């Protein structure tokens, strides 16, 4: 007899429940080992932080003024803007059924989603960076976590995407970095306007087939409902929202940096050091656009920006060496770039 794949469709839910529902499932799967595929759609927009990310990465004043709740999830990734035009999905399996390597686990658990996108006519691929893309544009945000003895991978069908707002909710010291982030989001993040019901049906079919399980409609267990109540409390507490204790990214006197990932290989850098300021968009290791501020550049700012545009990030220090002391300060700011830690 084929083992069941429990399917739960929560329909439209509050921002809070659009997170806590599936976290509760993870605790349930951890205890019962019942593989579960769930769906929900937030009834109102909000901003969601990855487990390790700082609240200071979000423009909280803007969120407050616009009635956008801020929640922290247990899975990874950066702060994201979420709204009712996104259908969330979550696949949750017992940890013993998932490869030990996180990359391998992600590949195995994202491939069926790619199959589902293709089934509804979207030419999706899972690229080497484990990003679900169509025509080189990211079409699905995802994150993953091991929670107790379960592994959960979540993602979304983005039916339409408010690029402007997705960039606006993020905090930037330099407005130029926000502009660059928005421009790159427009180029590299794309909605897929497909029938969500058809996509949902394709997801159920793809995951059941890939996992060798039989889909079976279900709901939360009593234990999951109790976990849900606890999660509702935890996710709305100040302590949870503050996140895990982290050391400051840079020490006093050292250059400080803000990196924002748009999709794998595409990101922006905002960095300052000794009165100098850099905002740069990077596309696959190459400077795509750049804005420089330094008191010593005088009339050379345009020339320096042109010299940097289109060159590999690795060549920045060499190019800036031709700009004297301002070049050295700018190079120190650029040296904060660490794409491996995006």
């Amino acid at each position, binding site marked *: 007899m084929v083992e069941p794949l429990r399917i739960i469709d929560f329909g439209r839910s509050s921002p809070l429940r659009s997170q806590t529902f599936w976290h509760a499932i993870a605790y349930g799967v951890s205890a019962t080992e019942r593989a579960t595929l769930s769906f929900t759609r937030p009834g109102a927009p909000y901003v969601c932080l990855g487990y390790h990310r700082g609240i200071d990465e979000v423009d909280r004043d803007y969120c407050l003024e616009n009635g956008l709740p801020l929640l922290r999830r247990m899975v*990874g990734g950066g702060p994201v803007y979420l709204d009712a035009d996104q259908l969330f999905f979550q696949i949750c399996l017992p940890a013993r059924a998932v490869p030990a*390597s996180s*990359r*391998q686990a992600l590949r195995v658990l994202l491939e069926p989603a790619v199959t589902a996108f293709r089934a509804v006519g979207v030419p999706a691929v899972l690229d080497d960076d484990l990003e679900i893309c169509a025509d080189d544009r990211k079409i699905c945000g995802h994150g993953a976590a091991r929670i107790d003895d379960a592994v959960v991978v979540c993602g979304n069908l983005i039916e339409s995407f408010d690029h402007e707002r997705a960039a606006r909710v993020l905090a930037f010291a330099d407005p130029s970095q926000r502009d660059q982030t928005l421009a790159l989001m427009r180029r590299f993040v794309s909605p897929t306007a497909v029938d969500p019901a058809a996509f949902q049906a394709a997801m159920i079919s793809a995951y059941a087939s890939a996992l060798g399980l039989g889909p079976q409609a279900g709901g939360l267990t009593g234990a999951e409902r109790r976990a849900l109540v606890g999660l509702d409390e935890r996710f709305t507490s100040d302590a949870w929202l503050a996140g895990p204790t982290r*050391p400051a990214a840079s020490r006093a006197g050292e250059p400080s940096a803000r990196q924002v990932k748009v999709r794998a290989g595409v990101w922006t850098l905002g960095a300052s050091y000794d009165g100098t300021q850099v905002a740069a968009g990077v596309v696959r290791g190459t400077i795509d656009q750049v804005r420089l501020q330094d008191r010593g550049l005088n009339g050379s700012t345009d020339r320096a920006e042109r010299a940097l545009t289109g060159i590999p990030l690795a060549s920045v220090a060499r190019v800036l060496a031709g700009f004297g002391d301002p070049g050295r300060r700018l190079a120190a700011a650029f040296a904060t770039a660490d794409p491996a830690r995006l």
Partner: protein
Amino acid sequence: MGEASLVVVAGFTLALDRHYHPETHMWVLGTGPGRVRIGMDSLGIETSGTLAQLSFSPAGTELTAGRPFGQLEAAKFVGPLISPVSGTLLSVNEEVARDPGLAEQDPYGAGWLIEVSTSGTGVAPPPLLTEPAEITAWFTARIAHYRLNGLIAQ
């Protein structure tokens, strides 16, 4: 750690001057009476992927063997760091929390994760591998297993 205690097994470094928890790839090194330092071996780090973030429970937390003492994030995947021992968390490596790359570059040295007091726990010691020969055999077998299953490159 002496140079002689660090060996390379099928492309992965292994320090033989400490004990290992075979399920979690955590190493345990005594640093004083009732005091140990904990880190992750090179194979555990490789299978985690490029570490983007590390976070730890605060000093003073009572740890239980087999339960998390922190979280790691790689490729947007958050997973627990499982303690190989019970005891009281004395300190965390702030440098590795600030720069998780340290754990990749020097997993047995500067990339250590936490220090724990194990005295007075009244808990039976966990099943750690303690002898260099058994550690090397286990490590060799894990590499072969992971390669066979495509979890690490050939």
